């Protein structure tokens, strides 16, 4: 203590020296008078019994007398709360440091001290350990790496003292990452605590599992937790924790949590006396029922009756769970969310009760508030919004939908910004319901007004979303023009999105295409920087395909180009359109060919290489369209600045076009430079391209193209023009890795050839999608061996793999998509569970990956015996100083080790009968998620690995397959049968293998593919 009291003199408190709010308590707005309780102050030192704050007291500057007026809360401090802070912490606290350097210096000193204490000969007592661990946590909070102390924390776990155990668990929850080698030790401690039957310890252990949530923990405990959850003698607090713990494990690795007889008992927790248990159970069921709706169906009626009891209760009935006069708002919201997982209840009585509830909530919204506090209205409206979401989800009660819409309409003009925001958001979903679309449209003026006047960008963005959602043919012109007007002042952050929306609406609802052309050109004029390639490619496609608009488009771009400063995108569109259709306006002397040319050429020197390349193509087209410009244009092409241009692309174009224009006859020129043909429909062009490119043998090529719209535009984006680089080899292209150009360099090939690609992916999400979620990507690999496993803004991971017998080799390609080097790049492969798959990385990957570069890693894989969980790939690196990490499932599934087996119908049936034990068979009936195409199905089954046997099943629509899974230890024979039912859009899949878990696992894997 002595040491402490000598210090404060030199210290100061940065955050408390100037802020005008400093006198307010954290909660001042909820308390009668801020002045009466200036809580948010460092405590004044007048109370010696409150010694624990003394070391912390700031030097009270005389110019801030109000600080000392603080009425000290500690006077009435209950003894239990007057707990001792860990002293010495203030030394650690750079709160008192004057500069960053001083902070770092002090922290390093402190770290050295703690390190020496941990390493010292003298055994530390529990209290000291606790203190130092706590200091480490604090240092970590301030953003410094902590690389020691983990072992000490683990040791604390086995302490008998609650507080030591507690801080140990805290350290581990915050600081230990999921693939630490300490996990085994930690798991041991958790196991002991779970078995201790001491509810406090059990809760600590459950908290730790939930907070770390790693796969290893899941494997160790997923089976125990359901037992704890439904055990009759578990305390309420343990049940609560167990429910959420299970939920967390399920979210992290659903395959580890087996459904079982406990599920029925979980549903009955909705009836529990303790509302906290109900709250936790609702969260758990909401998550579980998404994958297994039938198992949890009984929860509907229980949830409805629980909800009805809460909604109809008086504000005092639920006592502690009443929050600012609203009974159990959190639980009500959760119950309403749970009901949104299901269609409206079938049972008329349940449905009636539910509708009554919904009506009660809507009615209550009209009652005068029971309190003026914002918390009251917040809680009430939280329930109301969730009720409206449920009504929208059911989408079957026109009466309720219209009431919901009216309620939201009221909120649109509410003085609370939060409510306006949420109302706009909910209305967006309401707009897509046929019952309420018209009702939503009546609010158009309010929404437009919101777009213009809201102070908050988030709200304006919601307004723009809603306008987009409510747009139809009747109001498209109004909405598009309002959005265009808004664009002029819109926040930079949302401009690109608005541009895309305008472009989509303009195209979707265009009655006459001149309006469409005007709109897009306006877009470029107003927000040229935000008009992505997709948008201007699209206008070119549409103009090319519709001859009624070509003349108008030529005239309009010609006029637009006359502006003294016009955006480069305008030059691109102008160049392209005049090159194709300039002849349509050449009759007018004001836009005669020489005028057109000189207008374009006046922009030439200000443009980027890509645009200049496009303009050169326009010039050669001009030579064809207007022979009178030939001499001028040849002069331009011949100029040293073109023929000897440092840029290869420009130089090549200039040389080739110059030669073409001099040697080719008029006829040849006219043929070569003919007007572009109409662009083909999107699907056909892309499918054809894929088929051409991948060639035969790539079994998954077909569905590859169909399922991956995002890769289409990537692949297309770098389709080289004939004049540029050589065609990439098919395998490299399959990986799509060449497809990510370094961001700094614009694609050099933005010539005409590039425009062949339809760049609009489905729907509004035309921004470059970053591909499927890792889980989806993983599932795709079940039936194929090559492709992109993962992609985000920074990194792309491609996979190429081959498997033979029980061996496999996998190439992983890591592409750095940024222009910045990745440091400490380390991809590692871990095998969860027993070492059933044996993986040897052949060589280490370089620790640095340069911007735009790609590195390769090779894995050799040996399957020792059958396995269910795939190995995990964990990639860590630093990007611009920030550590990045991700963990992915490697696409190694048991079916990769399939060896197809051909056999005759007789053999097949004989073997089928041999495998007739109930546990040898796994069957699944499921809805088709993709169009039911026999060819695609065949390709998938072959990709899955089994042989396809014809003439076995009497029904030719059905598929029958056979194969052997090869592992080092054993072979597993496997027969499968897939029966599509086109009418019901369902499949039935039956698998029989000699090993029970393999049947089930294969069945799961394969069922997700259709």
């Amino acid at each position, binding site marked *: 203590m002595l040491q402490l009291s000598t210090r404060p003199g030199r210290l100061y408190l940065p955050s*408390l020296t100037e802020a005008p709010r400093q006198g307010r*308590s954290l909660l001042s707005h909820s308390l009668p008078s801020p002045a009466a309780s200036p809580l*948010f102050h460092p405590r004044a030192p007048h109370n010696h019994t409150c010694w624990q704050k003394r070391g912390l007291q700031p030097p009270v500057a005389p110019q801030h007398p109000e600080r000392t007026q603080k009425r000290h809360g500690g006077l009435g401090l209950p*003894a239990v709360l007057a707990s001792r802070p860990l002293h010495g912490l203030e030394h650690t606290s750079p709160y008192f440091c004057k500069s960053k350097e001083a902070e770092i210096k002090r922290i390093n000193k402190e770290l050295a001290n703690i390190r020496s204490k941990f390493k010292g000969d003298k055994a530390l007592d529990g209290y000291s350990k606790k203190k130092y661990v706590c200091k480490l946590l604090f240092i970590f909070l301030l953003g410094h790496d902590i690389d020691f102390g983990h072992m000490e924390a683990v040791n604390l776990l086995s302490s008998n003292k609650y507080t030591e155990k507690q801080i140990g668990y805290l350290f581990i929850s915050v600081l230990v990452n999921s693939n630490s080698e300490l996990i085994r030790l930690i798991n041991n401690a958790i196991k002991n605590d779970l078995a201790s039957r001491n509810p406090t310890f059990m809760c600590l252990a459950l908290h730790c599992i939930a907070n770390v949530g790693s796969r290893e923990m899941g494997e160790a405990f997923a089976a125990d937790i359901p037992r704890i959850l439904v055990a009759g003698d578990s305390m309420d607090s343990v049940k609560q924790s167990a429910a959420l713990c299970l939920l967390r494990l399920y979210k992290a690795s659903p395959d580890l949590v087996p459904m079982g007889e406990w599920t029925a008992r979980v549903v009955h927790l909705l009836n529990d006396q303790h509302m906290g248990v109900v709250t936790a159970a609702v969260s758990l069921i909401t998550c579980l029922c998404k994958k297994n709706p039938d198992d949890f169906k009984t929860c509907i009626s229980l949830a409805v009756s629980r909800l009805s009891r809460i909604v109809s209760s008086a504000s005092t009935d639920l006592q502690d769970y009443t*929050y600012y006069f609203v009974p159990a708002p959190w639980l009500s919201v959760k119950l309403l969310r749970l009901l949104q997982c299901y269609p409206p209840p079938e049972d008329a009585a349940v449905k009636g009760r539910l509708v009554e509830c919904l009506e009660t909530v809507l009615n209550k919204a009209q009652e005068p508030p029971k309190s003026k506090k914002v918390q009251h209205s917040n809680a009430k409206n939280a329930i109301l919004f969730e009720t409206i979401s449920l009504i929208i989800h059911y989408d079957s009660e026109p009466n309720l939908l219209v009431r919901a819409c009216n309620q939201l309409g009221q909120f649109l003009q509410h003085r609370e910004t939060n409510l306006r925001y949420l109302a706009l958001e909910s209305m967006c979903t309401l707009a897509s319901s046929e019952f309420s679309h018209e009702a939503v449209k009546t609010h158009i003026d309010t929404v437009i007004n919101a777009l213009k006047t809201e102070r908050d960008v988030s709200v304006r963005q919601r307004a723009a979303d809603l306008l987009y959602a409510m747009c139809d043919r009747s109001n498209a012109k109004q909405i598009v023009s309002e959005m265009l007007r808004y664009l002029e002042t819109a926040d930079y952050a949302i401009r690109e999105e608005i541009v895309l929306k305008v472009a989509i609406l303009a195209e979707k609802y265009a009655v006459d295409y001149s309006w469409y052309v005007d709109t897009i050109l306006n877009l470029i004029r107003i927000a040229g920087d935000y008009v992505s390639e997709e948008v201007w490619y699209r206008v070119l496609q549409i103009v090319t395909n519709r001859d009624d608009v070509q003349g108008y488009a030529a005239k309009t771009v010609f006029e637009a180009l006359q502006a003294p400063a016009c955006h480069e995108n305008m030059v691109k569109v102008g160049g392209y359109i005049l090159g194709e259709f300039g002849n349509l306006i050449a009759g007018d002397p004001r836009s005669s060919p020489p005028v057109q040319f000189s207008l374009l050429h006046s922009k030439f020197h200000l443009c980027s290489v890509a645009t200049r390349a496009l303009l050169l193509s326009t010039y050669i087209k001009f030579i064809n369209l207007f022979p009178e410009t030939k001499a001028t244009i040849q002069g331009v092409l011949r100029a040293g600045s073109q023929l000897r241009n440092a840029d290869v692309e420009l130089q090549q174009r200039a040389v080739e076009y110059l030669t073409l224009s001099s040697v080719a006859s008029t006829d040849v020129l006219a043929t070569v430079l003919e007007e572009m043909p109409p662009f083909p429909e999107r699907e056909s062009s892309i499918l054809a391209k894929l088929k051409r490119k991948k060639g035969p043998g790539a079994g998954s090529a077909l569905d590859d193209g169909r399922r991956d719209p995002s890769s289409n535009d990537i692949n297309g984006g770098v389709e080289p023009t004939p004049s540029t680089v050589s065609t990439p080899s098919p395998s490299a292209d399959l990986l799509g890795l060449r497809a990510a150009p370094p961001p700094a360099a614009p694609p050099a090939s933005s010539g005409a050839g590039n425009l062949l690609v339809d760049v609009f992916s489905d729907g509004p999400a035309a921004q470059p999608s970053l591909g499927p979620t890792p889980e989806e990507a993983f599932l795709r690999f079940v039936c194929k061996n090559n492709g992109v496993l993962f992609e985000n803004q920074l990194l792309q991971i491609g996979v190429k793999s081959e498997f033979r017998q029980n061996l496999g080799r996998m190439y992983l390609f890591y592409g750095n998509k940024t222009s910045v080097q990745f440091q400490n790049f380390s991809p590692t492969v871990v095998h969860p569970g027993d070492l059933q798959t044996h993986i040897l990385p052949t060589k280490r990957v370089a620790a640095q990956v340069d911007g735009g570069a790609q590195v390769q890693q090779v894995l050799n894989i040996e399957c020792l015996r059958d396995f269910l969980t795939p190995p995990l790939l964990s990639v860590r690196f630093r990007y611009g100083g920030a550590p990045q990490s991700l963990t992915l499932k490697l696409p190694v599934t048991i079916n990769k080790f399939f060896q197809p087996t051909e056999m005759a119908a007789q053999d097949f049936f004989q073997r089928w009968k041999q495998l007739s034990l109930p546990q040898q068979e796994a069957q699944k009936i499921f809805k088709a998620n993709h169009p039911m195409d026999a060819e695609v199905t065949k390709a998938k089954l072959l990709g899955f690995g089994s042989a396809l046997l014809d003439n076995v099943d009497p029904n030719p629509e059905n598929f029958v397959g056979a194969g052997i899974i090869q592992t080092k230890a054993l072979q597993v024979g496997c027969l499968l049968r897939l029966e599509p039912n086109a009418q019901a859009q369902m499949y039935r899949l039956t698998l029989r293998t000699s090993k029970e878990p393999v049947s089930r696992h294969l069945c799961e894997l394969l069922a997700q593919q259709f």
Partner: protein
Amino acid sequence: MIQAILVFNNHGKPRLVRFYQQEIQQQIVRETFHLVLKRDDNICNFLEGGSLIGGSDYKLIYRHYATLYFVFCVDSSESELGILDLIQVFVETLDKCFENVCELDLIFHMDKVHYILQEVVMGGMVLETNMNEIVAQIEAQNRLEKSEVTPRWA
């Protein structure tokens, strides 16, 4: 689900940081601070900061109390207003446990603040919203602690 809980003061100094699905990233804390700081007090308490943390499905929901910002990053399965209430519950609980909580309590009782938070949010899911229940749990912990403490400063 709650992806992260960040508490920082008006100067951006982190006071409580808890990530539930990924490792703590100081950069996220800093950027979130800059996003939140430039917002007026009267505009809405939700913002899309998704690209920072979990992707576009995630929202930042925050509340400003005196010198501290409380920011929760949540996905679309949570109700926005519900989370605002939850923040209020958390702060009121802190206030009860610390008798007029102030920023310094968060610094010098960091462990305690974590324990209180753990009674409210567990692994990103809400465990308990009843303030009295939470306070009772904390008091029980304090009693346990007290029974274990042997005075050392005498």
